[in-house]
């Protein structure tokens, strides 16, 4: 079929399909991409709403913020925004690390830190919002 004498030598027993399946730099295939895509679609209206809300709350007192969150709709939208934001942030930062950090220990550590910090910040925000609103 071809002349391989002068080409590079391949001594890996792995089919092209096997290489492609479930790969990408995260080694997890398309699932993570889909989550990133869904959260980005959700964040289109949510982030515009968030900016509008923050403009309305510019210079607000603590009571104003609490009052704003006691209404069910802002509370629900805020919770949605927080979940989508921190999910999106976690995946985005992981992608950057996976693409640019090649040293295995550093990469592993950074990925763990990103995971932990994203969950911690997300929880802090969600608990605060619930405490104000409920």
């Amino acid at each position, binding site marked *: *079929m*071809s*002349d*391989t004498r*002068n*080409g*590079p*030598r*391949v*001594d*890996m027993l*792995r089919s092209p399909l096997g*290489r492609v399946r479930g*790969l990408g730099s995260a080694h997890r295939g398309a699932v993570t991409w889909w989550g990133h*895509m869904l959260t*980005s*679609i959700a*964040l*289109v209206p949510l*982030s515009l709403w968030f*900016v509008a809300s*923050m*403009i*309305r709350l*510019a*210079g607000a007192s*603590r009571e104003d*913020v*609490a009052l704003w969150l006691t209404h069910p709709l802002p509370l629900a939208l805020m919770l949605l925004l927080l979940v989508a*934001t*921190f999910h999106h*942030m976690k995946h*985005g*930062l992981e992608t*950057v690390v996976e693409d640019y950090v090649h040293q295995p220990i550093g990469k592993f550590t950074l990925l763990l830190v990103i995971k932990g910090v994203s969950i911690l*910040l997300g929880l*802090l*925000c969600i*608990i*605060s*919002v619930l*405490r*104000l609103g409920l």
Partner: protein
Amino acid sequence: MKDVRDALYVARNTDGKLVRRPMSPHLQIWRWTPAMAVSIMHRVTGVGLALGTLLMTWWLVAAATSDRAFANVQWFLGSVIGMFMLFCWTLSLMLHFFSGLRHIAWDAGWGFENRAYRGTSWFVIGAGIVSTLVIWIVGLIVW
């Protein structure tokens, strides 16, 4: 050729011969174009927005904690440094927002033609800056 990364560089040329694919030159070799600038900017603003979530967390936690904590965060956000950070955050958000819209369009298969690519790159930059200015003008009037 023992690992996957190396194996991905192997392909057949038109004669069916196994060859090693040429590597793309690195960033500093290319001429800067709006497309390249927006692509890099998308990642930079993404990381910037992630840092910005620290401000949002501080604000929400302070509001849920005490009057004093909330007064502190409001003072900081109203200071020159705080306002500058909020402005950078808004600019990052809007640039990332419009660039993100383009990513959604790409994932739907639209906008890969050279003309569209270049046009939307300029659009992302322009819309990001203009919307940031509008938000701040409206915000300062309301405030």
